[in-house]
């Protein structure tokens, strides 16, 4: 018996609990070391704790500053707005796309292939593409100029580096609509045709079918996907950095810039912002899990 065989044979005879723990331990170690320790350290450092540095003082100062800082308030508002608008737009466009693509004949494969291809594109590339499309010297501004709608770059509305966050939203919607579309398409392909046939034989109109059968079936998986989109939109750094403006910036940009500040006293506040992002998204994880649990109970 070779060495690995001996190990495997040994684990076979182990009690059930030990076996489960052994199987889980590498993954739990990774999550524990990076994720749990990261959260704990973030919270500790937001209270002023500094590992490897003597003479730190624990205090609530960072949170007090956070509360009074108008930049953080503006940032929270921008982050929430961008995440909410992007998520809802991507969800409704994704569902629309899925419903339309499903009815396609031969070109269905091509259309869903287009969606899938978009999924693999890194957000950084998306940010550059949106910049080249929407900026005041971009393709759209050139088109409106050629059509005689705008006189020059300045008369084209500022869609990137704007106050509202249109550019950031555009990138998220462009990237996440295919994601939610693919999820909706997959949900639609699971035996829904038969159910619709039943509904039709029972005399349901097209609208009734959509309202009472198709959309309720889509709700759970699309909502689960939307929560992921929301968390991503609220927590990603590079897209709002490239397409937004320095003030107000989204929470992740504020946290990262504060952390990289050469002034170490800015760190607790940066950590407090990071904790805020974590708490915000942790709430979302809970919502996600509740949804998934309900989803797995209600299998059709």
């Amino acid at each position, binding site marked *: 018996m070779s060495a690995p065989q001996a190990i495997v044979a040994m684990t076979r005879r182990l009690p059930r609990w030990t076996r489960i723990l052994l199987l889980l331990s590498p*993954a739990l170690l990774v999550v524990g070391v990076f994720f749990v320790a990261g959260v704990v350290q973030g919270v500790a450092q937001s209270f002023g704790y500094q590992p490897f540095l003597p003479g730190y003082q624990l205090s609530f100062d960072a949170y007090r500053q956070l509360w009074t800082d108008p930049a953080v308030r503006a940032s929270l508002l921008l982050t929430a707005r961008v995440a909410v608008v992007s998520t809802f737009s991507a969800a409704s466009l994704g569902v629309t796309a899925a419903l339309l*693509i499903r009815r396609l004949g031969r070109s269905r494969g091509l259309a869903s292939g287009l969606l899938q291809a*978009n999924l693999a594109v890194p*957000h950084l590339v998306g940010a550059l593409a949106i910049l080249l499309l929407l900026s005041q010297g971009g393709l759209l501004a*050139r088109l409106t100029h050629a059509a005689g709608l705008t006189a020059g770059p300045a008369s084209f509305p500022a869609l990137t580096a704007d106050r509202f966050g249109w550019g950031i939203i555009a990138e998220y919607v462009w990237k996440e609509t295919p994601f939610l579309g*693919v999820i909706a398409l997959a949900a639609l392909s699971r035996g829904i045709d038969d159910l619709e046939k039943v509904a039709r034989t029972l005399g349901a109109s097209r609208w009734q079918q959509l309202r009472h059968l198709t959309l309720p079936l889509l709700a759970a998986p699309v909502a689960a996907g939307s929560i*992921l989109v929301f968390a991503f939109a609220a927590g*990603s750094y590079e897209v709002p950095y490239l397409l937004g403006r320095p003030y107000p910036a989204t929470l992740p940009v504020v946290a*990262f810039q504060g952390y990289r500040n050469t002034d170490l006293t800015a760190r607790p506040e*940066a950590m407090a912002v990071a904790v805020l992002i974590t708490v915000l998204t942790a709430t979302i994880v809970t919502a996600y899990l509740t949804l998934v649990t309900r989803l797995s109970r209600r299998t059709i």
Partner: protein
Amino acid sequence: MRRGVLLALITGLLLPWIPLLIWAVSRQWRYPALLPQQYSGRGLRLLADPHTQILHGLLTSTVIAVTVAGLACLIGFPAGRAIGLYRFRGRRIVQFFLLAPVIVPGLAVTLGIQVFFIRYGLSDRITGVILVQLMPTVPYAATMLGGAFANYDIEYERQARMLGAGPVRVLLTVTIPLLRPAIALAALFAFLISWSEYVLTLLVGGGQVQTLPLLLFSAIGSPDTNAAAALALLVIGPPLLLVGLAARTLSNRSSATIGLARL
């Protein structure tokens, strides 16, 4: 009406690619011209120019992404087996524990442990970048393989063992071949997550580990739009190729795409 809406959606999907493609092959494209004044292959030629370090970045990105994909599957496989095959108390908590890093933004979590990477000599190095990228990829691989193990029939293993196969042989000739599509997809997504990762690489790599996303980020900030657009085309090459190869398996597994929200 239907066709019109669908056409509008597809146009919206494809429109951003047009300026990117044009910028990649143009030399001069001043506002308000609709088409470039001059075309040139300079942007694309810069990709192979040793001064731009792009080829080196391509190598760094590939090494990191392949290693991360391999490790994520290696660590995620046993965890997936435990979640998918066993019903034990606390299973839900473990699942929750494994899902949290998929959803909570990596940046917010990594800021707190960055000093430890410096302290233990892992920052500014490929090793540190690979380790930090395990955080978003391992939970994902474990969850996905857990889903595959849940639909896996353990009877095949029992029969192989009854016929006299040893545990290693069962693993290599029964378990892995049966789960190959799921393993391939988990590896693919771990690769894609790693390939697109920017902020964790910057935080731990300290700008010393120059992956393609880092080079692209600084190219976007530079005035040379041609170079940035050409580099963007290089960055999307491998992901598009891999997703194209996996297209068939992908369309049969909806749950798998959940992980792509992280990209």
